[in-house]
């Protein structure tokens, strides 16, 4: 049985990768032949999906409707229609809100924070999971414990800090506090502890790789599904975050949730407009979902250390 390793030595790395893929495909084929999901799985998943998607679908329905119909019926209509696009157009072109600025700001904030969180969390998670150093245990417990303090009160000291740094009204005030999360570190620690076998690390070390090289070549690829999920979660969280930006930013320099919320007035809310705005703002996330979903690939490590 030609091993991937031998192939690598003789025919080069490209061929080795192809061989690995062939092997994975092979195992996936056997797996699929034995575990093709049946109708029960699809039914259960179908129900789950219906429940999950309905609220978003509901916003589409509300966005296609008008205030009177919304007030009169629990479900204004059953299928969305073209008037939805009218609402989109109105949201984008509304003079009350600064849509394009909000979009730009949201993108910047979400991208920067998710990249940073993934990088810093994987670094720290790798250390906590696989490296030995003094104070490892207590430090990790401490990090987890900090998640247990309610953050509502932290708003005020954070605000004081931001205003001392003169960052009020600027994007840094939202980005910097979001660059690291205890959640991310804890998640990567747990994931890497079970998904990254010591053999791989040792093999790399034995081959003379430095610590950083080991991290780059071994830990990062191994962390791919978890890193993808963490990045996605962070992105979504920052994209939909309302409370903190509402305090440190303002309608001059807003983010998308602020702008959508501005569409709501207290006494007469045009729900069709608001829901149209909400859907519009959720659309980019759906696109990213499709992209990240492909990162959830099984068996990256399987077959990696085979004889």
């Amino acid at each position: 049985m030609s091993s991937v390793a031998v192939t690598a030595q003789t025919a080069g790395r490209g061929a080795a990768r192809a061989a690995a893929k062939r092997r994975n495909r092979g195992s996936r084929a056997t797996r699929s032949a034995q575990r093709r999901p049946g109708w029960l799985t699809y039914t259960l998943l179908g129900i789950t999906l219906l429940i999950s998607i309905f609220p978003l679908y509901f916003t589409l329905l509300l966005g296609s409707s008008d205030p009177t119909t919304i007030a009169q019926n629990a479900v204004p209509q059953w299928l969305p229609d073209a008037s939805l696009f009218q609402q989109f157009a109105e949201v984008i072109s509304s003079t009350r809100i600064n849509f394009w600025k909000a979009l730009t700001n949201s993108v910047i904030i979400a991208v920067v924070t998710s990249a940073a969180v993934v990088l810093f969390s994987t670094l720290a998670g790798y250390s906590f999971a696989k490296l030995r150093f003094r104070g490892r245990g207590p430090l990790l417990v401490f990090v987890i414990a900090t998640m247990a303090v309610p953050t509502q009160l932290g708003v005020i000291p954070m605000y004081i800090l931001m205003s001392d740094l003169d960052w009020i009204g600027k994007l840094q005030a939202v980005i910097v506090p979001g660059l690291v999360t205890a959640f991310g570190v804890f998640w990567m620690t747990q994931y890497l502890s079970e998904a990254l076998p010591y053999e791989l690390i040792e093999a790399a070390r034995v081959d003379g790789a430095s610590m950083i090289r080991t991290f780059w070549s071994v830990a990062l690829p191994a962390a791919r599904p978890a890193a993808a999920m963490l990045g996605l979660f962070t992105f979504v969280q920052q994209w939909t975050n309302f409370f903190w930006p509402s305090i440190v930013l303002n309608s001059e320099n807003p983010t998308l949730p602020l702008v959508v919320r501005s569409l709501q007035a207290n006494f007469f809310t045009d729900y069709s407009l608001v829901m149209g705005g909400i859907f519009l703002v959720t659309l980019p996330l759906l696109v990213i979902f499709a992209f990240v979903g492909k990162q959830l690939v099984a068996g990256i490590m399987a077959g990696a250390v085979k004889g």
Partner: protein
Amino acid sequence: MAVLSPTQPTHRRGDPGQRPTRRVGFSQRLGRWDVKVSPYLYISPFFILFAITGLFPLGYTAFVSLHEWNLLGGQGDFVGLENYSAVLAQPVFWKSLVNTFSIFVFSSVPQVILAITIAALLDQNLRAATFWRMGVLIPYVVAPVAVSMIFGRLFADDYGLINELLGLVGVDPVGWHSERIPSHIAIATMVNFRWTGYNALIFLAAMQAVPRELYEAAVIDGAGRARQFFSITVPQIRATIIFVVITSTIGGLQIFDEVRMYDTYGLGGPDKDWMTTVVYLYDVAWGNQKNFGRASAVAWLLFLLIVVIGLINFLITQRIATSGPKSPKVRRRHTRALLAEARSAAAAGDTPHPQARAAAGPPPPPTFPPTTSTDHREDRR
């Protein structure tokens, strides 16, 4: 006789693991320093930023809790633990704790179970896998205003959809806002709706890392899907299960948004029937009292509670998720014993005594060589 022993042993071919042991060159020292310092270097970006954005507010809150501090009036006198004792004497505080715990049980337990089940369903070779997998995350991204609208229409006491449906089948309407337990269930439902898909994907990511060979071997042995799940999947993702249990414990004891959108005032109802402790904290700080000092005391008391419950959950989960009768140590010792036997048997030229084998434990697999890398295995979480 002059011993002309070389300072370094000659490099043996096929022995890449051997390293010169005598002379410690500069690159060796660098390597060792690399090993020692790297962990601290890697965690430092996190900790530096965290000290600013995470620790500073924590310390500030602790400082505030020891003073009489009005939100608008500013810092008052130092009062020590008086805020804490004042809070502990409030019946509303205790009521909120009971509410919090009740909502937590209604939300976290079904959530984790549902999430792991959904993840197991998703961990298969589905057609259009991305669609199914990402679809479960959609509840997480729907804006709160939309969610509160929908669930409000479902759970309204008089004109809500659920009560209407119950009326159709002749059941009495449920007092979602007028009774305590139904309100907890309704709020827990909103929480579960939002977070189940999220946790399911966390489990899914972890399940993706389980080597497929284990499942193949199980199938060969004739294990059904349920058996595979409980005996392979669950132990393999144990660390992730612990992670989800702890994070959903921490989150579940801090439920805030759903309570705020459950009724107009957002303070847990006229009887504080569904007021959670974080909402109580918010009311004390931003509400009529504006008592920042007391609110900080509530925060730290809640913190203590979460730590205690988190620990309990961690211990429970560790016990549950470790399936199988053997612990690692036994396994290692067992396999080492087998190795020693095999070697001595090979040396002695006869097969291992069946009795000795029985005494050592279950027989090793007949077709595969014994594992040696157990020697290198280190403690895993």
